[in-house]
C-alpha cells in the first residue's frame, strides 16, 4: 500500500504530459535507423579510395561493377525480403535457402517439361509459376507447424531445412538440371537499357513487398505480433492465420529467388540457396531489424543486402583474399547490433523502467 495522502489530491485532474521528445535522442534514433545506408555509403567510399590508390581505377563509377553488385545482391535480397517479414513477427525462417534450391530445380524441370508442349515464352511462365507455387508448400507446412502445433520457428524451419534439402536433391537426381529455354536464359542474362532484367524484377518485387509491409493490415499486424502477441490477440487479430500466411509468403519469396537463379545460370541446383540463408538473416539485421521482433523495414533490408554484396564484390575487386569477406560481414553484423542496442537503451527504453 502506498503512503500518499488520500482522496483530495487525486481529485485534481493531472493532465498527463505525453511528450518525451528530446531532439538529441531523436537524432541518434535517426542515425541508428538509417545505419545500413550509412554503412553502405562508407563502404563504397572506402572501396573507391582503395581502388584509386591501388589501381588508379574507379570502383563505383564503373557501370560494370554496379551491374555486377546489383545482380549479385538479387538472390540474397529476395530471401531477405521474406526473412524481414518473419523476423519482424518475432520468428525466423531457416528453411529459405533450401526452399530456394528446391524452387530452382522445380523451375528447371517444369520449364523443360512445359517446353515440349507449348511455346517457349509460355513454358518460361509455367516454370516460374511452378517454382513459386511449389515453394509455398514447405512454407505452408512451416506455418502450420508454428501456428497450430506451436513448434518454435527456429526448430520447425530447421526441420524443414532438412526436408527441403533432401527433396531438392532427390528431385534434381543429385546433379544440376540444365534448362532448355531461350527466353528463360534471356530473362536471366538480358538487359533493358543496361539494367539487367533480374534487377528490374527484384526492384519491382521489393517495392511491392514494401507496400505490403508498410501500408496494409497484414504488415501492421505483423509489427504488432512481433511486439506483443498477447496484445495482438486481444485486439482480435487472427494470429494463426497470420502466421500461416507469413511463412507461405516468405517461402514464395525464396521460390521467386530460386526461379531467377535458374534463369541466371540456365540450370536448377539444389544447393542454389545454401550459402544465402545466413546472408539473408544478416541483411535483415544489418538493415535495422531486431531479432526479438517488432522492428525492421524492407528498405533497411535492401541496404543490408547491398552492404553484404558490396563487401563481397569489393574485396574481390581490390584483390583481397576472399576469406576476408566472412570476417568483414561478421564485423558489420556485430557493429550493427551494437548500434541497435545503444539506440534502444537511450531512446526506446520505457520511462518507468
Amino acid at each position, binding site marked *: 500500500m502506498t503512503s500518499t495522502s488520500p482522496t483530495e489530491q*487525486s*481529485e485534481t485532474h493531472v493532465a498527463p504530459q*505525453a511528450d*518525451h521528445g528530446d531532439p538529441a535522442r531523436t537524432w541518434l534514433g535517426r542515425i541508428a535507423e538509417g545505419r545500413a545506408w550509412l554503412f553502405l555509403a562508407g563502404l563504397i567510399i572506402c572501396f573507391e579510395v582503395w581502388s584509386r590508390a591501388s589501381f588508379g581505377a574507379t570502383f563505383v563509377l564503373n557501370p560494370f561493377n554496379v551491374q555486377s553488385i546489383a545482380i549479385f545482391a538479387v538472390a540474397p535480397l529476395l530471401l531477405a525480403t521474406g526473412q524481414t517479414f518473419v523476423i519482424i513477427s518475432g520468428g525466423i525462417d531457416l528453411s529459405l535457402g533450401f526452399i530456394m534450391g528446391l524452387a530452382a530445380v522445380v523451375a528447371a524441370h517444369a520449364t523443360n517439361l512445359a517446353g515440349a508442349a507449348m511455346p517457349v515464352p509460355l513454358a518460361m511462365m509455367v516454370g516460374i509459376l511452378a517454382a513459386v507455387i511449389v515453394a509455398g508448400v514447405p512454407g505452408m507446412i512451416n506455418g502450420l507447424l508454428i501456428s497450430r502445433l506451436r513448434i518454435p520457428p527456429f526448430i520447425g524451419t530447421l526441420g524443414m531445412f532438412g526436408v527441403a534439402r533432401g527433396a531438392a536433391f532427390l528431385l534434381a537426381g543429385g546433379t544440376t538440371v540444365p534448362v532448355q529455354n531461350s527466353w528463360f536464359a534471356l530473362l536471366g542474362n538480358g538487359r533493358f537499357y543496361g539494367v539487367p532484367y533480374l534487377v528490374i524484377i527484384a526492384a519491382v518485387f521489393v517495392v511491392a513487398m514494401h507496400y505490403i509491409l508498410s501500408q496494409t493490415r497484414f504488415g501492421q499486424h505483423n509489427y504488432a505480433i512481433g511486439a*506483443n502477441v*498477447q*496484445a495482438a490477440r*486481444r485486439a482480435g487479430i487472427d494470429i494463426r492465420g497470420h502466421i500461416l500466411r507469413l511463412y507461405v509468403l516468405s517461402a514464395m519469396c525464396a521460390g521467386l529467388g530460386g526461379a531467377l537463379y535458374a534463369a541466371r545460370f540456365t540450370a536448377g541446383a539444389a544447393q542454389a540457396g545454401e550459402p544465402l540463408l545466413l546472408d539473408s538473416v544478416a541483411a535483415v539485421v544489418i538493415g535495422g531489424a531486431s531479432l526479438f521482433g517488432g522492428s525492421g523495414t524492407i528498405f533497411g533490408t535492401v541496404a543490408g543486402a547491398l552492404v553484404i554484396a558490396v563487401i563481397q564484390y569489393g574485396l574481390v575487386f581490390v584483390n583481397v583474399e576472399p576469406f576476408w569477406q566472412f570476417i568483414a560481414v561478421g564485423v558489420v553484423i556485430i557493429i550493427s547490433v551494437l548500434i541497435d542496442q545503444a539506440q534502444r537503451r537511450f531512446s526506446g527504453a*520505457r520511462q518507468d523502467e
Partner: protein
Amino acid sequence: MNSPGQTTPLLEVRNLSKHFGAVRALNDFSMVVRPGEVVALAGDNGAGKTTLIKAISGVFQPTGGEILLRGQPVTFATPHEAREKGIETIYQDLALADNLSIGANIFLGREPMRKAFGFLPVLDRKAMAVAAKKTMGRLDFHVSRLDAPVSNFSGGQRQAVAIGRAVYWDAQILIMDEPTAALGVPEQRKVISLIHQLKAQGRGVIFISHNLLDIFAVSDRIIVLRRGVQAGERKISETNHDEVVKLMVGG
C-alpha cells in the same frame, strides 16, 4: 450516451456462479453498475474477483446465473463478443503493441483504409492520427507527436492509451483490473483522474484494486468478495477503511 439519472442499470449480474469441478470460485453473486458509476471490487487473493470479471468479459462461461446489459439478457461465447457489445477490459499488464503509435494501437485489428492514387488500398494513418488526437483529448491527454511509438510514453500514459482505445470504440462498461498496480504514485493519480473522466462521460466502470486509497478516491460503491460470495456492499460515502478491511478478512 446515457445520462447518469437513468434508471435501467448498464450492467446487471444476477446470481452468477462459476464452478471449477468442486471448487466454487464464484457463488450466487449479484451486482449492478449504473451509467456514470464506478463500482470497486475488493477482496483478498482468491476471493473470486478475477473469476467474476472473466465471466463478465466473456473469457469464461458462467455455470449459472445471468448477465443483463441495459436490461437485456446476454451471453458471450468469446471476449470478442463482449467487446462488440461494449464491455472492454483494461489489463494491468498494458496490452499495447509498444512499437506502434497511439493511433495504430487504438485501431489495431480494425485499421481504416483509404485508396491511394484512386485504386491502391493503403492504411489511413492520417485518420488514425486524427482520431487518436481527438480521443486522447477527450481524456485530457494532449499529444503532439502522434507518430511516436507508445514505448516512448510512461506506464500511466500507456494505460491512458489503453483506456483511449476503449473510449474510441465506445465501450460503455470498462473493467479495469488493477490499472494502477504497475505504476508509480504520480502515474496512479493520472489513471485515477482518467477514471473520473470516464465517469463524467456516463460510462460504467468496474474497478478492481488492492489499494483502498485508490478505491476511496474514485469509487461510488464498493463490493467486497470473500471466498466466492459477496461479503458486503457499501456506499463509499457511508463506509471507511476499517470496515472494508473487516469485510475482506471476515472479522
